[in-house]
């Protein structure tokens, strides 16, 4: 009997060592160009931060990331019904635990949204304004039911309850971080951003701002368990450093490889490249409110004169995507590449310049030296292209943001997709009260405002679609913006790693959840 017991104990011990050994081998090492300075999904809007949230946090409503168009899936909410144009009710998943062991309740859900909707902390107020301006109230009907009320009819409930800013955070944990444990003070939110806790498949076990981040498998995760016991994300700011670390097998995956640096990876039998056209536009903007730029024909001419296909071939090796309209495949039914909003036609540009009475006035083009990949090169090429139709360009390389400068004429900028709807891409920048209007370089007339209201708040999809086509026509007639291309974002990795950026995420998300990544044993 004793012998059997000993035998069993020994076998168990051996088996558990073997398992631990296997699990320990299950580590993924990632080299990124930038590490976040803090991590709080609710207040973050940045390209750097958005890489890291999806592994550690869950939104109320999930989404199939393998598809560009939105296919909703249960998340923290298991089901939902829109009970009226302004109200949605959601059933909350039971048995979800936070990384710190606290059970997740309806109170946490209410708190997560309330901290933004009724913000007392400026970084949240900013997110309320750009992402959740239509959300008026969130309440727990009972322990399993949440009701969210909007001010105006809301066709985008699912989309907005899927955004990173609405990922669920722990109320009790946050409030207890500093000061009074029963009050959510701004200092609590500051502290949370350094010690973030969520419900996702990985917990953040170590976070050194701007340096490194370590994920560990969250065994209490409600869904399929994470494929890695540990994921170490290390900042390697220099491109040569990232390439070397990958070649040298110090890391399994590296981010931010520019298109002209893919060869050293692609030519190595042990390595490979994966990439995607990012749902983000590099754009040229015009200051429609600068009297010198007031004539729409001048701005039309400047748009028609830019050969974006050549820019793509020369700067992105043809891997970027030149859009026909301000539209992304991620918009699903509202993806309308058939609208020919932006075209290249130098002959038309010359004719329009003549009609506009262009007198050789130099157009100032502002650009930051190194903020956007290929930004300065594109600006220099645009200077040549404008020169070819007879427009003089004064290239102004400046580190200042001139978007609100009344003397600004044209400049390079970007329009990212913050959530998969025209309202989350075009809208953030070009809504009648959006960024551009608020900075005084774009003004919406009454017809534009009416179209916008219909597009944003109509609950009839066909009507939204028609209204958006109308908005695009208005942009074509009186252009404030020209999207140049969707840049191509490349990642280098070991050949044995099965991972790729997925089209169903916002730009730059590193998704290491189950089913999205595997590292074959060597």
């Amino acid at each position, binding site marked *: 009997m004793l012998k059997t017991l000993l035998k069993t104990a020994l076998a168990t011990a051996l088996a558990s060592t073997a398992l631990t050994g296997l699990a320990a081998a299950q580590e993924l090492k990632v080299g990124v160009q930038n590490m976040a300075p803090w991590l709080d999904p609710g207040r973050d809007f940045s390209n750097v931060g958005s890489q890291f949230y999806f592994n550690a946090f869950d939104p109320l409503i999930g989404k199939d990331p393998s598809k560009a168009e939105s296919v909703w899936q249960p998340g923290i909410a298991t089901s939902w019904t829109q009970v009226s144009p302004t109200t949605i009710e959601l059933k909350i998943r039971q048995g979800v635990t936070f990384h710190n062991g606290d059970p997740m309740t309806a109170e946490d859900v209410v708190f997560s949204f309330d901290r933004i909707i009724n913000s007392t902390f400026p970084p949240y107020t900013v997110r309320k304004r750009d992402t959740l301006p239509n959300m008026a109230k969130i309440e727990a009907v009972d322990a399993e039911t949440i009701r969210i009320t909007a001010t105006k009819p809301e066709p985008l409930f699912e989309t907005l309850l899927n955004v990173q800013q609405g990922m669920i955070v722990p109320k009790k944990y946050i409030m207890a971080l500093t000061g009074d444990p029963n009050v959510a003070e701004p200092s609590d939110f500051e502290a949370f951003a350094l010690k973030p806790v969520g419900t996702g498949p990985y917990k953040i076990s170590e976070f050194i701002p701007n340096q490194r981040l370590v994920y560990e498998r969250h065994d209490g995760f409600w869904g399929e368990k994470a494929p890695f016991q540990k994921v170490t994300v290390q900042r390697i700011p*220099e491109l040569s450093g990232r390439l070397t670390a990958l070649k040298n097998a110090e890391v399994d995956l590296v981010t931010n490889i520019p298109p002209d640096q893919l060869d050293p990876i692609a030519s190595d039998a042990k390595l490979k490249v994966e990439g995607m056209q990012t749902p983000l536009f590099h754009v040229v903007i015009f200051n429609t409110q600068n009297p010198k730029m007031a004539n729409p024909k001048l701005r039309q001419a400047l748009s028609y004169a830019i050969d974006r296909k050549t820019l793509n071939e020369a700067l992105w090796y043809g891997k970027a995507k030149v859009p026909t309209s301000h539209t992304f495949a991620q918009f699903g039914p509202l993806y309308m590449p058939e609208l020919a909003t932006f075209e290249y036609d130098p002959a038309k540009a010359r004719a329009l310049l003549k009609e506009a009475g262009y007198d050789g006035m130099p157009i100032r083009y502002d650009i930051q030296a190194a903020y956007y990949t290929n930004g300065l090169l594109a600006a220099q090429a645009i200077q040549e292209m404008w020169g070819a139709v007879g427009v003089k360009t004064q290239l102004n390389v400046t580190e200042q943001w001139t978007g609100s400068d009344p003397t600004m004429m044209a400049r390079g900028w970007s329009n990212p997709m913050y959530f998969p709807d025209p309202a989350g891409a075009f809208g953030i920048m070009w809504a009648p009260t959006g960024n551009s209007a608020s900075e005084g370089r774009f003004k919406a007339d009454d017809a534009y405002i009416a179209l916008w209201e219909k597009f944003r708040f109509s609950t009839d999809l066909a009507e939204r679609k028609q209204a958006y086509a109308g908005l695009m026509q208005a942009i074509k007639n009186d252009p404030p913006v020209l999207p140049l291309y969707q840049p191509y974002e490349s990642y280098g990795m070991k050949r044995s790693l099965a991972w790729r950026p997925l089209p169903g995420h916002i730009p730059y998300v590193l998704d290491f959840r189950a089913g999205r990544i595997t590292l074959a044993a060597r």
Partner: protein
Amino acid sequence: MLEFLGGRMLRMAITLWAIVSVVFIATRLTGNPIDFLMPDGLDAASRREMIAYWGLDRSLLEQYGRFWRSLLSGDFGLGLMERRPVATIFTERLWQSASLLLATLALTIAVGVPTGILAALWRGQARGSGLLFIAFLGYAIPNFVLAILLLLVFSYTLHWLPSAGSASLAHYLMPTVALSAYFVAALARYTRNAMLDVLCEDYMRTARAKGLPEREIILRHGLRNALIPVITVLGLQMTTLVSGAVVVETVFAWNGIGDLLVGATLRRDYPVLQFGVLVVASAVILVNLLIDMAYALVDPRVRLAGS
């Protein structure tokens, strides 16, 4: 000596005040950090709100006043980007930089001084010229070029050494060599020249005449006297060493003070930048003070001139 020190301290304080003030004003003239801290698409009201959140809506004079008031009370403020006390941010990275600098210093002395002595003893010989040529190369190659060259050979091609971070002793090899090359070369050249001067001195001849073994003549009588100018040079190279670390840290993904300062400059993270400049400037001034004190102790003429 006390009088000498007092005068030195006063000058030190004035220098620090001037440096920090120039940095304070110069950084604020280049633009607003919000353009680097917030992504594209911030509307005008939110922009104002965030500028107020960082306390950057106050007048330059008020910001300047607040800065010195809190500095004197030992509060160095919060980094704009990380929203943590800048003192914490620096402490976290201090050891990474300090250990790299110490390793560099050790390598520089261990290689530079013997090379210099040998080059002096082998004056006029092919092997002496060979050493000088190698030293010249080390002097001429910019540290970032050498750093990338080392990466290319030992990590990228041969896979012998780790390239990114500071996790193990092996991680120290390439950054230390890249950073030391210039200083080894500089030190070797200074040591050689100082040795050559000393070798012709009368007391060297006397030592030989006494029948001392050659080893002892060179090390005890020669090197000891030659080291005085060499130490001076080493102290003066402190600033070059710190600015070299800035570049090398970035190449090797070394999370040190240099890397922090580069990032803070690019993003206009004023509090981090101001504190960093204060720390580095203090360190340089302190080293200079120590050197001056050492002089004063050794040479009474300096002490007299100082008072």
